[in-house]
């Protein structure tokens, strides 16, 4: 089975800054892999099988090459960096368009795995759009994958419980954070990685039209930013804990009515 895992590097801190066009400044911050994407990668590595291969695709600045090399050391067969200044400022659609073009260039794949959402943007929209672009089915928000008799079964959490779904391949599946813990490098995976290089892809190689890339190809634009979350309540503050505890109980009893 040939599996593609799409991974995003996110700032390791929440103290981020934006430029004049409200694009996240990724140059000055330390980047690390999004936690849910690491789960997706581990799921991919477990299900690749003896004949299978796992390719990791990441879109981002050139300095991501170091992060990708580390994944080769952990046992990834192929690591590909799609880096191009014209991709900067991409919304979820422009991101999905670029990833889909890269997936078609590198594939075909039996399964495409993504994290269910990135902790910086937190939209969770890229997997569905990627599936839309590739015309394959998509299941989001899964936390367990099982292969049986060439069939993929996934466990998907919903607000009201969960479902177990059978998915025909090829498909895009997004995986929740903490479902699979990314493995550590082994001696053999470290040895294998010595012969491997991080591959580079550019917009030109993919033949993506410039008007579909980055900020230009985005259909949503940030027009303003503020540092306030709406819904200020600013209720009174009590420092006497006995009085506070008593009021708290009263609140609980009011709900009970």
């Amino acid at each position, binding site marked *: 089975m040939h599996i593609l895992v799409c991974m995003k590097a996110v700032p390791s*801190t*929440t103290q*981020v800054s*934006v430029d004049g066009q*409200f694009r*996240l400044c990724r140059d000055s911050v330390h980047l690390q892999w999004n936690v849910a994407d690491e789960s997706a990668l581990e799921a991919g590595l477990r299900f690749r099988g003896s004949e299978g291969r796992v390719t990791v695709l990441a879109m981002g600045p050139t300095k991501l090459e170091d992060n990708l090399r580390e994944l080769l050391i952990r046992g990834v067969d192929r690591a590909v960096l799609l880096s191009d200044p014209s991709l900067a400022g991409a*919304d*979820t*659609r422009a991101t*999905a368009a670029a990833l889909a073009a890269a997936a078609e260039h590198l594939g075909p794949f039996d399964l495409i795995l993504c994290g269910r*959402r990135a902790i*910086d*943007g*937190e*939209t969770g*929209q890229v997997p*569905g*759009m990627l*599936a*839309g*672009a590739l015309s*394959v*089915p998509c299941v989001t928000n899964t936390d367990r994958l099982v292969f049986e008799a060439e069939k993929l079964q996934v466990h998907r959490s*919903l*607000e*009201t*419980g969960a*479902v*177990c*779904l*059978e998915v025909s391949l090829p498909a895009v599946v997004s995986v929740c954070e*903490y479902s699979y813990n990314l493995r550590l490098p082994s001696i053999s995976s470290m040895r294998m990685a010595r012969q491997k290089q991080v591959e580079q892809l550019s917009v030109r190689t993919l033949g993506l039209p410039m008007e579909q890339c980055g900020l230009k190809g*985005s*259909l*949503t*634009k*940030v*027009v303003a*930013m*503020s*540092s306030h*979350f*709406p819904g*200020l*309540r*600013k*209720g009174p*503050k*009590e*420092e006497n*804990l006995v009085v*506070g*505890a*008593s009021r*708290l*109980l009263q*609140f*609980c009893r009011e*709900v*009970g009515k």
Partner: protein
Amino acid sequence: MSASFLVLCPFGLDEGLLCKAVELSGSAPVRILLPEHQAQTATKYGAKLVHTIPDEFRGEDEAEFARWLSEKALQWNATVILAPASVQMRGILPMMAWRLNAGLTADCTALTMDADRLIQTRPAFGNSLMADIRTTSEIQMATVRPGTFRCIERQVQDAIIVKEIPSKSVDVKVKTVTEINETAPLNQARIIFAGGVGIGSLEGFRKLEKLALLLGGAVAASRGAVDAGFAPYRCQVGMTGVTVCPDLYIAVGISGAVQHLAGMSGAGTVVAINSDPKAPIFDYADYGIVGNWESVIEHVLEELL
């Protein structure tokens, strides 16, 4: 030309979202798609064009459902498409957006109109900023945090109700094997005791659980507490966890990052307990208690028992 609103609630009505659409659309009628048994409720909240689908429809083949919904949206000339940000709708809308060449904004916490353009507000970039987003495509789409908007009754007398049957693919790509109904999900609890990093340990969470049990509440946690291993991930409230709107939300030892606020801002009453009087959570609470949370709990238990 005014915007033509379509509200998609195929798995259950989000009353607040419908009311918001009615408010934003002005005199233009709002169209809604929802389960059959909720048709009358939709007319109570201002929907004029009501399309129903069978109550038992599950829509597990989301790509196929997205294809059908996209066709309907075009047929109905919808220019603004809104849906609750549930797991299922957040899976379906991206596929629709791709088909419809539409910009899509996830998890909005506020919506306003600027002429025929929807201005969508959502938390962005970790926990520090709120972004206003404008969509440039003809069709504008957004998912909205459940429980974000208030309900206002506006009974419609002359609503048109039409039954729809979603298409079925001949070649089924996704099918249900089993359904698991978990006991009392967090987002149905009326009282929630949520613990943050300030709880300090797994034992601390046990204390919180004990109190919650006594008072008929459920226990939740912030991302920091889950990351620290104090509570399981299924308890996590906030942008990377679940959204809750209980009648009473008690934030214990939670500082109040925007990410967390986004998951609980719809709560009826918010009580915050924190030893740091400057913790941002106090700004978003109806009642604050400044002090050691364990002492507060002891006082509560004394009064209770």
